[in-house]
């Protein structure tokens, strides 16, 4: 009897075997992890291959549609002009994102202090948001002498709204009972803001920030298109304009690729930032079991 149960007990002590459903779940999770990277990569490779095949097979002139090989060649060859332009665009984008964050959070905190302030000014934030930046940009470049400042303003206008509206929502969605608790313990307005409302708003803010990251790149590019002037310190949008005047289609593609990559990198960085800040406590960052 005792001898009989001994191995069972040992096995149980080591690690009880998984049932079929759990084992399947584990296998699916492993496949999912690979597929998440592999599938988009396969689609990407297939698209590029198809593109190359189409261009070769139908002998499409390169000034209409260059093949991927020419785009890569342009990217390498024009790197000395594209790289500084990328840096300029990146500076505007990140600068605008920083100001949008400060401005958006600052305004949201101001709104949170007083319903009256919120009621008075929120509609204007909406107006600023719904008016396409491309129609405001020319005016801004008339009124603002510095091109850099003009670009920053344009990108800011596009980027700050999601931060403002999300943070405002977040500040107002602090748990009601926790607010009561703060009141009961005699918390000051500042303590409530700092220890309760801002942490409650963090996930909302980070969601807004992720949107704002992409928007500030769009804002920077659109504003550059409007600003249009060349010379020193012009960004990627201007390189695209310039290349289009010269029918240098491969360079246009190369610049577009760079802009897309920049957008992807910004989005990925902000997603990682968001995950790092929320992973200990927020539902969105927690892996579910089953």
């Amino acid at each position, binding site marked *: 009897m005792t001898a009989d149960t001994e191995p069972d007990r040992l096995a149980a002590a080591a690690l009880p075997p998984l049932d079929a459903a759990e084992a399947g779940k584990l296998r699916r999770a492993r496949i999912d992890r690979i597929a998440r990277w592999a599938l988009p990569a396969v689609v990407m490779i297939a698209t590029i291959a198809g593109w190359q095949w189409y261009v070769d097979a139908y002998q499409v002139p390169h000034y209409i549609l260059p093949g991927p090989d020419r785009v890569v060649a342009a990217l390498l060859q024009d790197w000395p002009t594209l790289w500084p332009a990328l840096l300029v665009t990146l500076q505007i984008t990140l600068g605008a994102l920083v100001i949008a964050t400060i401005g958006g959070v600052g305004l949201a905190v101001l709104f949170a202090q007083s319903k009256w302030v919120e009621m008075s000014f929120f509609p204007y934030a909406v107006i600023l948001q719904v008016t396409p930046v491309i129609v405001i940009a020319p005016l801004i470049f008339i009124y603002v002498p510095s091109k850099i400042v003009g670009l920053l303003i344009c990108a800011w206008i596009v980027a700050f709204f999601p931060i403002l509206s999300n943070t405002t929502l977040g500040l107002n969605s602090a*748990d009601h*009972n*926790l607010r*009561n*608790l*703060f*009141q*009961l*313990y*005699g*918390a000051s307005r500042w*303590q409530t803001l700092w*220890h*309760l409302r801002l*942490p409650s708003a*963090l996930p909302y803010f980070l969601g807004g920030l992720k949107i704002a990251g992409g928007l500030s790149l769009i804002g920077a590019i659109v504003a550059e298109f409007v600003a249009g002037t060349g010379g020193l310190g012009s960004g990627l949008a201007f390189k695209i304009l310039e290349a289009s005047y010269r029918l240098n289609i491969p360079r246009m593609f190369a610049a577009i690729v760079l802009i897309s990559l920049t957008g992807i990198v910004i989005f990925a960085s902000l997603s990682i930032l968001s995950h790092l800040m929320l992973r*200990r*406590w*927020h539902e969105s960052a*927690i892996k579910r079991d089953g």
Partner: protein
Amino acid sequence: MTLASSPLAGEAAGTVVSLQNVSKTFSNATVALKDMSLSIRQGEFVSLLGPSGCGKSTALRIVAGLSSPSAGRLVWPGERPGQKDHDISFVFQEPTLMPWATVFANVHLPLKLKGESARVARDRVMEALEMVGLEGFAESYPRELSGGMKMRVSIARALVTKPKLLLMDEPFAALDEITRFRLNNDLLRLWEEFGWTVVFVTHSVFESVYLSNRIVIMAARPGRVVADLDVDAPYPRGEEFRTSHLYSDHCRRASDALQAAMAGEAPDA
């Protein structure tokens, strides 16, 4: 059984707080409380028992200062007039923890709001966590705890200020019965040890009899006190009390009083 609401009770010695003819009408014309008088005496474990909507939470919130009475007075005999800080703690039905903060930080909160840094308050926070048996979970986050453990954290947070008066609004209603029994016992043990005054809102006759030495029964529409029962059973109470005749007798008395209260309600209730 004694009928409640002697208006002079508030001046009696050993009264922590008393509601004197308190009424509460909400802006939507709901009369949540009408002419409610109740004195809470030092060291009592009082249960407020009544049907849903009879104003138990409203009464508790008024005592806590989270809501103001429309008429009547709230009197704190032992305190200087105009004192704002009443040394109260409140436990809600939900654990109401800050998800972004560790168990330690959650329990530290009341002290932090009073300006005590984590370093200064460390011993007191750990002591409160020990009281509820969670000293090993100080660095955990609320989501890593079970429902019962979260409730314990919530209780530890209420105890960390060593309050004169502990207000609890159906604190265990969302828990399973086994966990509820265990927390009932823990709460009683702590109450006996430290001798606080507790006002405990519940809609369970059994829970109120098991825990308290006084049961205040309320009726709805309008919310008012209809009966005030003493539970003369010795502490410490344990599982054998739950199965005793004394317990079932008290349960029947409380249950009858509750039935009577509900029978007297307006028919639209």
